[in-house]
């Protein structure tokens, strides 16, 4: 049996630079319950290097990150 984790809230942050991508991530978290999963699409470069690190520092759990065909990254995060 395979388990697929799916995001309950999803935000495509392609084209949104630092730090507004983190601001929007925090706004999304503020409307979610603890344990829910947020799915993000982040640009390659500073966004993928910074956003997962920042949310981890705030206690959330990065479940996966995988690069897409266009170079952007799909990231799943469980809200603390």
């Amino acid at each position, binding site marked *: 049996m395979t388990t697929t984790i799916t995001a309950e809230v999803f935000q495509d942050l392609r084209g949104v630079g630092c*730090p*507004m991508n*983190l*601001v*929007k991530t*925090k*706004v999304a*978290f*503020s409307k979610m319950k603890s344990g829910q999963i947020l799915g993000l699409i982040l640009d390659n470069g500073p966004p993928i290097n910074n956003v997962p690190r920042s949310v981890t520092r705030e206690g959330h759990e990065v479940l996966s990150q995988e690069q897409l065909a266009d170079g952007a990254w799909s990231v799943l995060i469980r809200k603390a």
Partner: protein
Amino acid sequence: MIDFTEEQLERYSRHILLDDVDVDGQEKLLQAKVLIVGAGGLGSPAALYLAAAGVGTVGIIDNDVVEISNLQRQIAHFSKDINIPKVQSATEKMSAINPDIRIRTYREYLCADNISEIIMDYDFIIDGTDNFPTKFLVNDACVFLGIPFSHGGILRFNGQTMTIIPGQTACYRCSFRKPPPDEVPLCAQAGVLGAVAGMLGTIQSAETLKYITGAGDLLTNSLLTFDAKTMTFRKIRLDRHENCPICGSEPQITELVDAEQAVCGLA
């Protein structure tokens, strides 16, 4: 829950990025009501920072008009504002920084008769007055109504401030029983280094934002003093006193009264 506009998210992004403020802290700021007593040296930076921070309702009370001798330290007022009411001048600057906020102005002096009615609607008060009688009046009214406030005072190169949560932490009278006798007006003769007003008023603003958002630890049960000449900061522990004449177990002060006051225009 507030739905922030894109513009608000950008405007307040540096608050939202702080873990201790975050989205809900900024919401609390937008819903908060803060009254600034005095639009002078302390009230000017406070007005600008509270407006910039998005404090939803800012009240400001002052009866004076802008004079040229104010401009050395009262940074909300510009040369073009001479002779216009300070509350009007401060309002223009606050709206220019942040059109999001509501501003209520009171062009009058605070006294025993009007203070309760004016302050009762606010969540937090910044005391930016320039004379001891009004500082005691603000303390007493805030203790009676249970409204948290920031005490502040400046003179020459020195500043002092403490934050008071009535019923929980030391009030101003716990340590300073009554206005000093034969008070030398703090104003014209004494002088004050302009930036000292900004330092102190900015500390009071930070305490206000911390109180509203719940971030950090407040400057309660302690008096922060600094001397800008040596740039020495000191925190003196001040405990609540059982025999405080207003917040102690058997208070002698049970109503608000005006002390005779030397009205002057420094702060």
